[in-house]
């Protein structure tokens, strides 16, 4: 069957390159494992970290199962509140991925629409949008996210805020990432809009919206797809950073960032496992997504082929 896939894929450049790149295949495998683990957390995890009754303070700071004093109930040990670390990581990855995917999707939709319009319409609209992008770019992503989070805290009452925390976080991260999409989409649109097929559509009297969405958009998807993967890693990292700083997800919901924050407090007292395992998960996830993004960039760039 493998041979059959290979033969069929000779037609498909991307699949062919993929099947000949062990690095990309390993990265995909790891990413898929991470995502599957995150999605299936409720069924895979030994305990539910959201259920306060399921853990006991007596079990706090238990080292991993194979270490001295380890407990076989907790494969990767427990944290300061007696939560099973493996379960917390599985649920945490789920949260981190969710925030990452939604914020990147938000950034992509916003950025690509602005970029397409700026590139196609040009003129004053383009100038204004790109100046806004410049301003956005001069603010560090974390600062943008902190600002939005701070504003949200100011406006919303405490309880509402905790409920809406995830949405606020997604919007905050999305807003700090849209510029990348907008710039790339605009630059590619500039190239495409001068091609003769766009002129042909204009001569026929096609509606500008249709020209942008049906004619140009499919032709600029290549570079955007690449940014999508790279920025997914950035978004996950940003979420971890914000949670680490304590302005991200609420502390009773474990994300990779909050786990690492809790872990660092105990790092110097020799309780290394709390910080190590969430960090390792985060690094593996981000490297695999980044490698995938790099692979896509090379595979979709005809000049590097």
């Amino acid at each position, binding site marked *: 069957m493998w041979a059959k896939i290979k033969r069929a894929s*000779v037609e498909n450049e991307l699949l*062919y390159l993929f099947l000949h790149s062990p690095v990309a295949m390993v990265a995909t495998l790891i990413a898929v494992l991470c995502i599957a683990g995150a999605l299936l957390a409720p069924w895979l995890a030994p305990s539910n970290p959201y259920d306060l009754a399921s853990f006991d303070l007596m079990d706090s700071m238990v080292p991993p199962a194979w270490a001295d004093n380890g407990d076989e109930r907790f494969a990767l040990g427990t944290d300061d509140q007696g939560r099973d670390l493996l379960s917390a990581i599985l649920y945490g990855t789920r949260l981190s991925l969710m925030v990452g995917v939604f914020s990147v999707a938000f950034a992509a939709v916003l950025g690509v629409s602005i970029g397409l319009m700026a590139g196609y319409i040009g003129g004053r609209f383009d100038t204004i949008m790109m100046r806004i992008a410049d301003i956005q770019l001069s603010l560090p992503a974390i600062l943008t996210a902190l600002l939005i989070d701070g504003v949200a805290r100011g406006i919303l009452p405490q309880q509402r805020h905790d409920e809406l925390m995830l949405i606020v976080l997604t919007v905050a991260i999305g807003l700090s990432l849209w510029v990348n999409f907008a710039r790339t989409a605009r630059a590619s649109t500039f190239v495409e809009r001068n*091609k*003769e*097929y766009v*002129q*042909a*559509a*204009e*001569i*026929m*009297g*096609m*509606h500008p919206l249709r020209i942008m969405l*049906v*004619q140009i958009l*499919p*032709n600029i998807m290549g570079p955007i797809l690449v940014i999508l993967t790279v920025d997914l890693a950035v978004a996950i990292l940003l979420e971890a950073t914000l949670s680490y700083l304590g302005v991200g997800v609420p502390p009773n919901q474990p994300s990779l960032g909050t786990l690492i924050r809790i872990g660092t407090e105990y790092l110097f007292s020799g309780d290394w496992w709390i910080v190590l395992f969430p960090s390792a998960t985060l690094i593996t996830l981000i490297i695999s997504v980044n490698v995938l993004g790099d692979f896509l960039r090379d595979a979709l760039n005809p000049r590097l082929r």
Partner: protein
Amino acid sequence: MNQPLLNITNLTVKFPTRFGEFTAIDDVSLTIQPGEIHGLVGESGAGKSTIGAAIIGLLQSPGYIANGHVQLMDVDLRKLSPADYHRLRGNRISMIFQDPQTSLNPLLTIADQLVETIQQHTPMSDSDARDHAIQLLDETGIPNPACRIDSYPHQFSGGMRQRVVIALALCTNPELIIADEPTTALDVAVQKQILQLIQQLASQRKVGFLLITHDIGVIAEITHRVTVLRNGRVMEAGETAQVLGAPTHEYTQALMAAVPRLNTKLDRFHNIVKDDPSAEEEDEWDVPGASAQFASDWLLGKRNTESKTDVPSTHPILEVNNLDVIFYSNQPSWFRKRTGFQALNNISFKAEQGKTLGVVGESGSGKSTLAKAIVGLVDPATGTLSFDGEALPPGSKRSRQHPSRRRIQMVFQDPYSSLNNRRSVEAILTEPLKLYGHGGRNLDSRKLAASVLDLVEMPQRSLTKYPHQFSGGQRQRIAVARALIAQPEFLICDEPTSALDVSIQAQMLNLLKDLQTEFGLSILFISHNLAVVRQMADTVVVLKDGEMVEYAESETFFTSPQAEYSQLLLNETPSLALLE
């Protein structure tokens, strides 16, 4: 007998691909004597450039020479080490590339580039090298070389730049120069000068030239001997006059028949080159009921219902009056007065119904701007357009629903960018139908699209494919089909064949002529190639720097041109007159 300068015997070049090995050059032999200009002619994909690269040792990876000998005087080039080869390149073999815009480094002055090359190969002082460089520029016909040597490449025109490239190739006094399409990017007047320069260098310096080109006119003009290639094989070789004048091989005969002549007008090209027999056979795939006849009935049916009277209208289909187009620099400022570039100046002409109007001129003369002003991509500054007796509003005031959007269609120059690569041929062809709401709901758009493809002699199966699966000529047919499906009355063709090989060009011109006779299409045919315009046009407009120099009946223009510029243009076009 004296030793040939270059002796290639049984050269075979292969490219390993993941589909198996591809033989790019198959058993090619040729010799070049000192002072000889040897033409290498063939259509795209024939392997012309690959031979050049194999000689100079710069075959693109993963290509390799599988068999044969390449001998330069006493040196067997295939036995050279990479380091020795590097020394030989430039020293004994030089190369001239197609595009003078990109073959010079834009950040270095001419002096820097020449002096560096000279010193690379022969140790000499800076001032000696500079003197030598000035002398070379003088030899290649750069006026006032002592002064011009300190200019940057962008300060030269295209033709001058190509002269500098030739001077660069001469730096080291090479024995052989490989010129890969040296005049393809140049206008005819400049082309003529460069060709004369090459001729002069060959006879005075006894340099051997391998002139790679697809232009048979250029070959006929200056080469001594010629080798005709097709699919990496030699079809015919020998004295130029004999090979081109009395070709013996079937392919050469067909090729010569496809070359448009400047001095005669053919109604149709005959003896067209047949498609490569090795091309894969496609299984039959038809849309039920689709046929060329169906498409042609559909196109004619529209015509008949529209013109209620049988009397052909007397007024011209398109009238252009005193048209001016001015381009402003796109940085508007409150403090500066806008300065503009006059792209078209006071152009007036009439295009007759069912006839072809040819627009000729060199690059930058405003040919494409004229087309864009008519279709509404560019707004004229002053002047009026009228189409079929009604005023045609300028582009920015022309609504998307304006009927002229359907009645005037355009075929673009570059078939690679005029079709959207991400859409299937069916989507491309049915788009105009949706847009113009043709035929209402009971029209089977798929059947019609397949029929129109049949009409332009493309297999119906093409519907399911994407543009990148087709060659340039096939793409151009699809572009014509897209224009036809709008049921136009006026077709604007902007250099429709300049990206195509001669045999494909002949097929394309035949197709346009057939469509015109069958459907009474009026055509505006833009081209820089006078020989092609001669075959197509009934009336000719000559543009120079945005001004109309001549406007005459085609026959009158080609037999007795009035304007001085027209005479010049006609004289400088390479012709096959030599052979007749």
